[in-house]
């Protein structure tokens, strides 16, 4: 039987740089590896990896395996899988960490099935059981209404990790590590999908994930218009962005990329103002990392008041204009 050792992070690049989710995985992976007294490895695969490999070391990796190939410019499962499967077999890690991202959601289950193991997706918490040395994996279920703790004895133990739930280490450029470039042929005849076109839909202005303040509307907004007027006015005043829960996105009131929640974006702004959002667990899964949640809802029993620090019970049509006007006055003073 092969020996499984160490923790492997399947990294991602964003616009040529190490993605923030990868630095978070490295922070989490470092702790797990230290507990196991084993190494932390990172895979970076792209058309060009560049300095990101050194960054991965600065953020905690002991060894960074890099694969550069033109076929890896954009993520496609059939090309990435060839790389990830080979590396997973060569490195033979005990644990594989992947981000619960657009790529991770698509890659991790396929890789697990190919390696003949299991994966727990969207984990919020990971630890090592000192008695069994198994990875204890916590994954929210029932739309966030409960959490399940899994372990698996089939190796490697694979998980995907929700963004913004793990802390990265402080960047330390003097950390020592090794970059191992791997020459690999990718059989492009095995790639059964073709990206015909990539279309950016994101609105101009501040990105939802980076906004310090988010003003978010729910089903109770009643239609598309208030997102462009009353919510936007407040968001602009606070130099923030407008977001939404799932119903407005499903109903086409706002574009899908504004959807915050379990199956949308995960955000963690300083201030999250939830307007006419009931606070279903599917939604709070995407915003509960916010520093301060403020809720405006006409239903005093709405679940959002359990998450919020401050709240007003009332119709948003009455509460919000008065709130925005008073705030304008206070900010101008």
């Amino acid at each position: 039987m092969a020996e499984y050792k160490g923790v492997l992070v399947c990294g991602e690049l964003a616009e040529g740089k190490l993605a923030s989710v990868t630095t978070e995985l490295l922070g989490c992976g470092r702790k797990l590896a230290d507990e196991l007294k084993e190494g932390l490895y990172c895979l970076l695969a792209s058309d060009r990896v560049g300095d990101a490999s050194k960054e991965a070391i600065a953020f905690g990796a002991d060894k960074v395996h890099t694969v550069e190939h033109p076929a890896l410019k954009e993520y496609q499962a059939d090309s990435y899988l060839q790389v990830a499967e080979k590396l997973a077999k060569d490195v033979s890690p005990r644990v594989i960490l992947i981000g619960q991202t657009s790529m991770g959601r698509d890659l991790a289950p396929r890789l697990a099935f190919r390696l003949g193991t299991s994966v727990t997706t969207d984990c919020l918490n990971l630890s090592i059981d000192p008695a069994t040395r198994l990875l204890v994996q916590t994954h929210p279920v029932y739309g966030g209404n409960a959490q399940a703790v899994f372990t698996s004895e089939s190796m490697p133990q694979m998980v995907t990790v929700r963004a913004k739930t793990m802390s990265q280490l402080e960047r330390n450029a003097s950390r020592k590590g090794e970059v191992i470039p791997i020459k690999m042929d990718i059989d492009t005849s095995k790639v059964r999908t073709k990206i015909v076109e990539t279309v950016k839909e994101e609105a101009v202005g501040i990105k939802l994930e980076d906004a310090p303040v988010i003003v978010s509307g729910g089903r109770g907004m009643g239609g598309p218009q208030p997102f462009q007027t009353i919510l936007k006015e407040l968001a602009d005043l606070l130099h923030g962005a407008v977001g939404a829960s799932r119903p407005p996105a499903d109903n086409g009131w706002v574009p899908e990329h504004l959807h915050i929640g379990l199956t949308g974006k995960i955000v963690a702004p300083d201030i999250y103002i939830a307007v006419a959002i009931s606070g279903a667990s599917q939604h709070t899964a995407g915003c509960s990392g916010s520093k301060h949640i403020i809720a405006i809802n006409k239903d005093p029993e709405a679940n959002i008041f359990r998450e919020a620090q401050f709240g007003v019970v009332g119709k948003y049509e009455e509460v919000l204009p008065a709130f925005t006007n008073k705030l304008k006055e206070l900010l101008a003073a």
Partner: protein
Amino acid sequence: MPVNMVVCCKQVPDPEAPPAVFKVVNNKMTLPPEVKPVIGQYEEFALEAALKIKDTVGGKITAVSLGNNFVRDVIKKSLAVGADELILLEDKAFEDGDSWSTANALAAAIKKIGAYDIIFCGRQSSDWDAGQVGLGIAEMLGIPAVTLARKVEVSNGKAKVERVIPDGYQVIEVTLPAVIVVTSGIGALRYATLKGIMAAAKKQPVVWKPADIGIDASKLGAAGRRSKLDKLFQPVKESKCEIIGGDTTAEAGAKLAVRLREAKLL
């Protein structure tokens, strides 16, 4: 060219039920009887994707559900909205599986169905939220898969899929047969017509047992799990919300602004 489609539909407790009714007792989710089972929300989108293709190029839709003790009126919704056949993998042995044992059984059933061009799945079930079964089926059948589809068109033995990415979408062409994993944006599942409901009432689902798909019970359901559920729990959350009041709701709104300013939040 008519398209042979399989749609995987799971029966789950209504995910829209208020959070307070979800209660974990002895490591099991227990729900009061007034919470009715439904077909999972993403599986409904998957059904709609298949129906749209049937509308435009024609074809046959076979719905497949795996579990035990299906509520016939709930699970037959697929027939009422326009699926041609419903196969139920229904047995105690199918209960409490993980993504691996579920995908393994579904893949075996789909092989038995034989003719398939597209297998539609929802992006994740509304109960365990794992998001793996569609990809598992693709791996087991050795066919490609496209995830997070919000639009699907079929022509010349290929599917053109709009795949949602964080800042927009990609148009992806995939050779058939393929698994297509559907997300919201495809459009809500159509209502069943009276005619559809009447037709569904006359149809009986086909029930397959483990022996019918040739899989040993040790690889099914709870016995076939690769990952072990150690614990199911609900983190205790204490509400600490400070409710700001006023003589009118507008006044409360203005007071909220003052309070947030005081607290130096804004």
